[in-house]
């Protein structure tokens, strides 16, 4: 029996595979396809204090080996999330990472205060990197000083370990990783999506109503590997690596680059049972290569 478990923020996870926020709802939506209890963790869609409407449609577009989205963090607000989604997840034997969003420092702090009271939540992931909302989101995640400040602010009130989710839309990802660490983050996760644009050349219009959207999928995977490598080398806190993971090889690669856990994102849309397949295939790779503990490969390329 191979050991797939990893230790992350002083907690033990049965395997390193979770989903990227926003690509798996809160698990309910995919529960007919996936045994949720088999996952390392479930990372929920971003939650804010109050309900958010999100952006106008079209909100999604396919791109070569990937897609763009500009959902705009539509969510029902923390109260509904706790009563409905969290209550559903509580019945499952899987750690829950809740992604938190806000328009301002006050909103982040309020949401973190509210959510960190919940015993069913293992970790909080702070979304300071969404490219599709006008205020908050990426504005906090592309300036090292703002990132430091928001990290400090949420850490001050959080009773749960805090993961800062970083944007790839920066020149120096190592600098951003260090800012989060200095602000007191318990972990970082990366990458969120790349700000991108698609134009319909016949209609002479933007394909997404929001004009820009976040690019994700296998197309950006090698850039994500590079950024996870650079960020994880720059800090001593653990990293969740994500960006276009489509198979066990991509997940293993991400761990070798320095990720302790990995998240599957848009490829869940292509193959709903992908995370389960990846977990199985990581085990097969361990057999094939004589790897006893998956944690042994973390950051082996450093």
């Amino acid at each position: 029996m191979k050991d797939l478990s990893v230790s992350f923020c002083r907690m033990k996870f049965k395997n390193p595979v979770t989903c990227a926020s926003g690509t798996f709802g809160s698990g309910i939506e995919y529960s007919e396809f996936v045994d949720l209890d088999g996952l390392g963790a479930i990372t929920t869609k971003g939650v804010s204090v109050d309900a958010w409407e999100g952006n106008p449609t079209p909100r999604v577009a396919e791109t070569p080996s990937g897609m763009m989205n500009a959902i705009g963090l539509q969510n029902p607000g923390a109260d509904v999330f706790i009563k409905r989604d969290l209550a559903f997840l509580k019945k499952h034997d899987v750690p829950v990472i809740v992604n938190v969003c806000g328009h301002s420092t006050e909103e982040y702090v309020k949401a973190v205060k509210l959510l960190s009271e919940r015993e069913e939540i293992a970790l909080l992931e702070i979304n300071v990197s969404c490219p599709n909302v006008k205020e908050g989101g990426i504005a906090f995640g592309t300036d090292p000083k703002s990132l430091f400040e928001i990290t400090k602010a949420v850490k001050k009130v959080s009773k749960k370990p805090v993961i800062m989710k970083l944007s790839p839309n920066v020149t120096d990802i190592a600098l951003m990783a260090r800012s989060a660490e200095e602000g007191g983050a318990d972990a970082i996760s990366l990458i969120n999506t790349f700000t991108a644009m698609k134009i319909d050349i016949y209609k002479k219009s933007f394909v997404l109503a929001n004009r820009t959207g976040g690019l994700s999928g296998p197309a950006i995977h090698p850039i994500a590997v590079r950024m996870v490598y650079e960020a994880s080398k720059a800090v001593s806190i653990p990293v969740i690596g994500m960006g276009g993971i489509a198979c066990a090889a991509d997940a293993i690669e991400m761990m070798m680059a320095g990720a302790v856990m990995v998240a599957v994102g848009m490829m869940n849309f292509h193959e709903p049972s992908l995370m389960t397949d990846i977990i199985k295939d990581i085990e097969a790779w361990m057999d094939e290569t004589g790897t006893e503990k998956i944690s042994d490969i973390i950051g082996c390329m450093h």
Partner: protein
Amino acid sequence: MKKCRARIVSKKELCEGIFDIRLRTEIAKDAKAGQFVLVFPNDPSRLLGRPLCICEADGDELRIVFRISGLGTKEISGISEDEEIMIEGPLGNGWNIKAAAGKEVLLLCGGIGAPALLQLAKKLGSQKGKEGGPKNVKAVLGYRNAPMNTFLAGDFENAGAEVVIASDDGSVGIKGNVIEAAGEKDIDCDVIFACGPMPMLKAVKSFADRKGIPAYISLEERMACGVGACLGCVVKTAAKDAHSHVNNARICTEGPVFEASEVIL
């Protein structure tokens, strides 16, 4: 709801750019009228399934009729008999068949909207005059012009619907849109089921509103997951949606069929 391989039983081009594909799949037996499937291109650089309505479901056979509207549907249209393709479904809510009980039913089918209504026509046709079934079923099928070959019109007739044909340019049937054609034929109805382009659905919504009768419309939108997770395909709603708690409903999950008065088009 599952994702699985489906084998192509037959493929026909009904008129230029509109394809009729029959698939053998276990998904067919669970499919209800008005639901849809995601059909995945085989090209690995095109990762998202194309949401295509279920035209007919019979035993283990599923029929989809769709128009080429981009590179993905173009690729799917190029598949040959005996080849396999991945599909996911059945997805969405389907038509509210109970709303037809004892009613004069009017099906309004605009162009490539017609396939979304055929299985419903068959179902209603088989229940016509029976308890819980409709009193009568009429269908107006609108086409752009004669070269569109009045595709599926024969299928609606075989399903037991009284069919009226309309075309934008008058080259076949009544000149005008489906609502104008229904008016010219003096069709009386007390419930409408409709699918077609957005300007038509807007007209159906206001027509039903004026007449004070319910209209059920099937919507489309660009989708990613198809199962309600990504929130990519929403429609504005008049009241707060029970799931989202904002004035947005997921077309893939709460839809694709909505009561017209519930949505803002």
